[in-house]
């Protein structure tokens, strides 16, 4: 038994269970746990199992191209890395973007939050709460009544509709080809929904799959495609031409109308389907309040969605900025990404080396040298790992810390920070939800709370998306159609050396890009991404990260069927392709095992 500085009693004497691959996430991840004789998790080890080295690749390239490279860090949160990147370059070079560009970028970023949250909840997370096989036992008429009770405004609610879906499901199951549902843990008592709720939620799995297609079209309007829309240093690439010659080649009335109709669809789905589903499902799991982890102790948010172009001061951001440590919600610390003492990364338990133990580096000065070695107590071989040794190096993810603290980031962290700061919209939403569900504030610090915060945020972002659309239209009405600032487009106008930082709130949490530019080229680039925070391995002092902390002390119905582990890990929406890549500070040759 060992107590971590951040307050967790780690006991690895119980049975070890390995979960690899962890599915329904972006990228590759492994999780190992020890459970005691009662099936309670007493030790948790989370491992990022991929590395792509994008920052190494960025060195020496044109900073104006960096958005396209970093956008490819992740195709699920597509666009958020690109936005972070153009902000970092603009910060370094002192480029001010036009007001319309700020509104369009906000619309795209908010649209991503909504799209990502919906796809996450229905297609990556729902099967941790919802049992589609159990839905076969539902009475379509009772399901219809349930639907009308939880969401009277949703038009798709007739008994016939649910019967059709159930029939489709039935034939699918009877065919014996279960596809993605095969080998699910469908008879595990951890599933608590009655058949009617299972049928309703499974139906919405399909509705959401159709809906997300529409939602993403906002990116296509302004960025030309989705996934991976196009961005531009200095503004946005889409010009505005409301009624002049050639207006069909620009943002015009037809394009705005299309955007507006999609924005309405987002709001409708959030209100009529997503939020009611989370409340309905949540009510059946109201006593399962495990998985809070660091959320009641240490939360970090950079903030995002600036009201006005180029103003990133905390008070001007619609998504809140701040840090909470030591569980003290009465004090929200300001966050400065430039301060070398605040954000630092450590590699003592990661497959990299800094040459000396316990060293932390600010992203502007970060170095990375791969060192893939397993600890002395690992089982298996280096290419056939049976069990990892968490006392040594055990992950491709680094360990970022804020003033030495392991932090949780993401929708719940944003909502905890927002709530603590008295953010009006967030406070109203949270208090309202707790009242509706008749739960105390403490219930927020849980797996369910994380999932609910994501839904609330999707709803809030839906309103904000409309707000910035209206703002864009008002600005155009006032005669401003400017979308890009090209004063410093030409690298000849740049200083010899510059450094900058870009920040966003990605769907999964606080995202920062740090860039150094020299002679018009990228000298150094580093991303510290949400899943690096949440999926962080231990540090030299033994502090565990958010994933590991959230799994601690969770009881499992059947330890060999990791429903509870998946439920909690998925509540973070892990993105491993994002989390596992590092940068290069100098020009050393890259070799097989040595990456600098």
């Amino acid at each position, binding site marked *: 038994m060992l107590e971590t500085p951040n307050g967790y009693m780690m006991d690895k004497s119980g049975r070890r269970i390995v979960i690899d691959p962890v599915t329904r996430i972006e990228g590759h991840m492994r999780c190992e746990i020890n459970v005691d004789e009662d099936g309670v998790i007493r030790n948790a080890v989370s491992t990022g199992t991929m590395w792509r080295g994008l920052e190494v690749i960025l060195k020496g390239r044109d900073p104006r191209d960096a958005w396209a490279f970093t956008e490819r860090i992740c195709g699920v949160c597509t666009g958020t890395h690109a936005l972070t990147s153009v902000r970092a370059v603009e910060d370094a070079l002192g480029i001010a973007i036009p007001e319309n560009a700020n509104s369009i970028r906000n619309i795209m970023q908010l649209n991503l939050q909504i799209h990502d949250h919906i796809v996450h909840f229905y297609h990556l997370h729902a099967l941790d709460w919802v049992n589609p096989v159990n839905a076969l036992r539902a009475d379509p008429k009772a399901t219809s009544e349930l639907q009308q009770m939880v969401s009277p405004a949703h038009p798709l609610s007739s008994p016939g509709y649910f019967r059709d879906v159930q029939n489709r499901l039935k034939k699918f199951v009877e065919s014996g080809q279960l596809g993605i549902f095969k080998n699910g843990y469908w008879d595990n008592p951890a599933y608590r929904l009655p058949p009617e709720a299972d049928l309703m939620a499974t139906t919405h799995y399909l509705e959401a799959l159709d809906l997300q*297609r529409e939602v993403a079209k906002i990116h296509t309007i302004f960025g030309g495609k989705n996934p991976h829309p196009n961005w531009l240093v200095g503004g946005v690439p889409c010009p505005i031409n409301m009624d002049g010659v050639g207006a*069909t080649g620009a943002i015009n009335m037809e394009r705005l109308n299309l955007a507006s109709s999609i924005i309405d669809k987002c709001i409708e789905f959030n209100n009529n389907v997503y939020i009611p589903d989370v409340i309905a499902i949540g009510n059946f799991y109201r006593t399962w309040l495990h998985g809070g982890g660091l959320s009641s102790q240490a939360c970090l948010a950079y903030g995002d969605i600036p009201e006005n172009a180029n103003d990133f001061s905390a008070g001007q951001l619609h998504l809140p900025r701040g840090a909470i440590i030591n569980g003290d919600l009465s004090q929200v610390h300001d966050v400065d990404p430039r301060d070398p003492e605040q954000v630092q990364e450590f590699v003592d338990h990661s497959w990299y080396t800094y040459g000396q133990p316990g060293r932390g580096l600010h992203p502007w000065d970060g170095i990375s040298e791969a060192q893939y070695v397993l600890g002395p107590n690992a089982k298996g071989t280096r290419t056939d790992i049976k069990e990892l040794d968490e006392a040594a190096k055990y992950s491709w993810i680094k360990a970022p810390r804020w003033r030495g603290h392991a932090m949780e980031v993401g929708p719940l962290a944003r909502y905890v920070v927002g709530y603590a700061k008295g953010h009006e919209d967030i406070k109203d939403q949270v208090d309202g939800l707790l009242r509706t569900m008749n739960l105390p504030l403490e219930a927020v610090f849980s797996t369910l709370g994380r999932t609910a915060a994501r839904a609330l945020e999707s709803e809030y972002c839906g309103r904000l998306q409309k707000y910035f659309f209206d703002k864009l239209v008002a600005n155009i009405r006032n005669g401003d159609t400017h979308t890009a600032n090209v004063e410093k487009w030409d690298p000849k106008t740049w200083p010899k050396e510059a450094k900058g930082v870009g920040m966003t709130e990605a769907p999964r949490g606080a995202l920062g890009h740090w860039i150094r530019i020299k002679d018009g080229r990228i000298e150094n680039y580093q991303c510290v991404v949400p899943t690096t925070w949440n999926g962080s391995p231990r540090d030299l002092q033994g502090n565990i990260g958010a994933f590991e902390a959230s799994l601690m002390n969770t009881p499992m119905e059947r330890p060999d069927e990791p429903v509870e582990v998946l439920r909690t890990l998925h509540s973070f929406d892990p993105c491993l392709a994002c989390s596992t890549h590092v940068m290069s500070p100098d020009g050393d040759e890259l070799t097989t095992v040595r990456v600098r």
Partner: protein
Amino acid sequence: MPDTPNDRIETFYEVMRAQGISRRSFMKYCTLTATALGLGPAFVPKIAHAMETKPRTPVIWLHGLECTCCSESFIRSGHPLAKDVILSMISLDYDELLMAPSGLAAQAVLEETIAKYKGNYILAVEGNPPLNEDGMFCISGGKPFVDKLKRVAKDAKAIIAWGACASYGCVQAASPNPTQATPIHKVITDKPIIKVPGCPPIAEVMTGVITYMVTFDRMPALDRQGRPLMFYSQRIHDKCYRRPHFDAGQFVENWDDEGARKGYCLYKVGCKGPTTYNACSTVRWNEGVSFPIQSGHGCIGCSEDGFWDQGSFYDRVTDITKFGVEANADRVGLAAAGVVGGAVAAHAALSALRRAQQKAVGQSNAAKAAKEEA
């Protein structure tokens, strides 16, 4: 196909009918499919017949080093809908992104699928294997991903390389390729591979390729690089709706300038449309809403081999001596793809010249008219 009746895989038509889809809707679906594939109405009965008699094909979808943009694109497909593909057209037996189980239960599904459908499943690969560090830059089940890829490929009926990662290496393989990320055809050398490049590929191109294979039970016609001719045989420039502005020498000179607002050609701000083989300017994106050029940014050439290492996305393509404007995909593919060359520059210059001439003619005509009026 499995021999015993019990193992018989349901046909696509049976599944659709069983799911309450009418014969009429089914035929309508076949018509849409024919249209999506660029086939005439004569093909509709053929597609219908295939759907009625052919069993659903099991698919194993593997993920290597990637960003999941291909899967995200796939679920955007409007015709057919992703849910119909997943639930009805194919049997998506293994896909770590969407499948319910994890760990041992997931590994068991993979083993079962390989054993049960040996030689009869399609392997779809998103991402690629890194070879450095003994393959351990991408670990799955405690072992190198490349081992898993080779094992599943061995008994596959056909292999699809989704996107730029599997086809060419994409961003993680850009110089200096620190993990030695490797396109799949370099580790699977004994089987034909259908490349569906793009970062990501267009949704309807992805479902179009799968539909084609399920419908006709054969690989689509491919070019020398292994790309389906039906979607990758022409350049974006060839069918770009802004092409008349290129021919007229009307260009965007800078972002948000008068030309940009009028929808002029983006060649001078780096558009790689003249050297990129893809269906963006015809099929377009997200059910035809737009494509990069329509929304004001040049094509970055994301379906071409090595497009990350061809200079800035904003550099004007200049060296086209290798490929004439009318060169076919194979010839361009053989050359170092991505860089456009002198022919395009010359082409642009000619267009500009022609425009100047027309302008001059126009002016002299106007002068003539003015004279006559006077």
